């Protein structure tokens, strides 16, 4: 049964339970999120970048002198090609570009097939909302990828950060160390005896989501049409598409309330830790859209940050 709208569900749930329909307010000690601008480059010069966003509007941003850019590797912002899809971390109410990621993509899924000898071609099952995708691991990156993914075999998990080059996704950097178990054998969560804690800590990652928000693993399969949902190695409670999650980046304190917009059926299968600032508790608890991830202070190239989520 498809959900209709995040806002409508929140209003209806609030009416039934007599609670406040407003999204949870952030407290004073929550850091202010960055502004994130996403879109396609229309023009770029050493000092100015013009981007067309999803709504068709033009955004003009001044490029800060200390700004850096990434497109398969560090590049000068002025060298980014016109037409590249970018995510920009912006300051001053979204007018100054500080960090630019161009054509970045996240390649997370279960390996279905591996072919090729020099350049590897991997078919990934990326979950219900992304389907299967064929990706290429170029020879120059295969060493780094293989070190962190020793089991490049069907049935095992794969997670890399890459770049879309001419429509073809290239895996360039390993995003995590590959879990030693198969995707179908996720370790069970530790038993919880006294209900669920109101705050749960773990790893937050980013992914290519269709809209701004988060993908959450513990959704009922009957509500989402995602047969692989409801798997997590962390004791996460069941929520729904449209529920609001409070996500806090533990590393730099920025926090935001974000809606659940997709089923995190692949996210829940990773029991890894994030080492961004100290060692996070085991398990991925949430997958953010690239824009939301950047707003909370994450670096798309690092792939994760230590996070704490609150419920509603």
């Amino acid at each position, binding site marked *: 049964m498809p959900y209709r709208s995040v806002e409508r569900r929140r209003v209806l749930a609030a009416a039934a*339970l007599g609670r406040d329909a407003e999204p949870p307010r952030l407290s004073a000690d929550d850091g202010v999120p960055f502004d994130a601008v996403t879109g396609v480059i229309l023009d770029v010069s050493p000092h100015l970048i013009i981007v067309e966003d999803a709504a068709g509007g033009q955004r003009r941003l001044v490029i800060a002198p200390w700004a850096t850019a990434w497109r398969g590797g560090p590049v000068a912002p002025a060298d980014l090609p016109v037409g590249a899809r970018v995510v920009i971390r912006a300051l001053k109410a979204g007018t100054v570009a500080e960090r630019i990621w161009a054509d970045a993509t996240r390649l997370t899924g279960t390996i279905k097939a591996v072919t090729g000898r020099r350049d590897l071609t991997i078919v990934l099952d990326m979950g219900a909302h992304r389907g299967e995708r064929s990706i290429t691991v170029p020879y120059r990156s295969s060493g780094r990828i293989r070190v962190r993914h020793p089991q490049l075999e069907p049935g095992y998990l794969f997670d890399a950060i890459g770049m879309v080059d001419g429509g073809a996704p290239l895996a360039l950097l390993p995003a995590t160390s590959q879990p030693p178990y198969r995707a179908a054998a996720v370790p069970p969560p530790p038993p919880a005896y006294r209900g669920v804690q109101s705050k749960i800590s773990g790893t937050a990652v980013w992914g290519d989501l269709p809209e701004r928000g988060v993908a959450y693993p513990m959704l009922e399969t009957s509500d989402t049409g995602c047969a692989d949902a409801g798997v997590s190695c962390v004791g996460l409670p069941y929520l729904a598409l449209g*529920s609001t999650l409070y996500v806090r980046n533990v590393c730099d304190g920025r926090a935001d309330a974000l809606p659940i917009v997709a089923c995190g059926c692949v996210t829940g299968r990773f029991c890894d830790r994030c080492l961004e600032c100290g060692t996070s508790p085991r398990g991925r608890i949430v997958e953010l859209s690239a824009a939301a991830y950047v707003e909370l202070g994450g670096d798309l190239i690092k792939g994760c940050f230590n996070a704490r989520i609150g419920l509603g």
Partner: protein
Amino acid sequence: MLSTIAAAALPVLVVMLLLGGVAKIVTAGGDGTPGALGRLGPAVLAPERFVKPAMLICACGELGLAAGLIAVDHPAARWLPVAFFAVATYVLQDLRRRRPDVGCGCFGEVSAAPVGVRSILRAAVLTAAAVAVAVEGTTGAEVVAGISWAFAASLGGIVVLLLALSPELEESLARLRYRAPCELRPLPPERALSRLRASSAWRTHAVLLESHEPADMWRELCWRFFVFPARNGAEVVFAVYLSGRRPAVRAALVTPDGPPASLQESMPVSA
């Protein structure tokens, strides 16, 4: 006296061997926790790729010994369990000395606690019981024929002794008692819908509904929400609590533009 003890020991040995064999096969066959087999039983002393086959061979051996005790009327079928339990006693003692961190794996993953004196003593008691069976040459037919009060007392004594020496008992009881909180339990929407339709809130609002099939439903924590189209474009939303025999059901009539109508005062409940 010894023949009575031997007659009582035979079913105990058979049950222990069957339980141990089946539990080991289930643990080795399940691909659950990664590295779990690397912390269970004497097989950890073998290289990693042999751990699973070693556990399966041990399980098959135990099942074979149990079958031999029941069905084979030959002294070898009585003395093989003696050798098995004697070796097991020595191996557990050696395991405790060489790998104090691993469990005995006697009953699969339930025996994950590090090997202690109780596990070793239990293996020794089972060795003694197997010796009694072997010396007396007890068979399954004799056990059935010799049921008496003395037999029952011996059986009870052996069972109590083994239970007292089983560290798995506490673990098994804890697992049986454990029930996940309702926020973590998958619960089918059909059950919540049937509970909703049996509630007084449903009977109160049924006349307002245009359709009795939900237009939308979702779950948050312990609440499942059902939305039904109502007259004049409004919607009735029901919230059903997912725990308990007679769960709480809340309802509200919501107009298309958002705010709830004042048909029923909603009760403040935190989800």
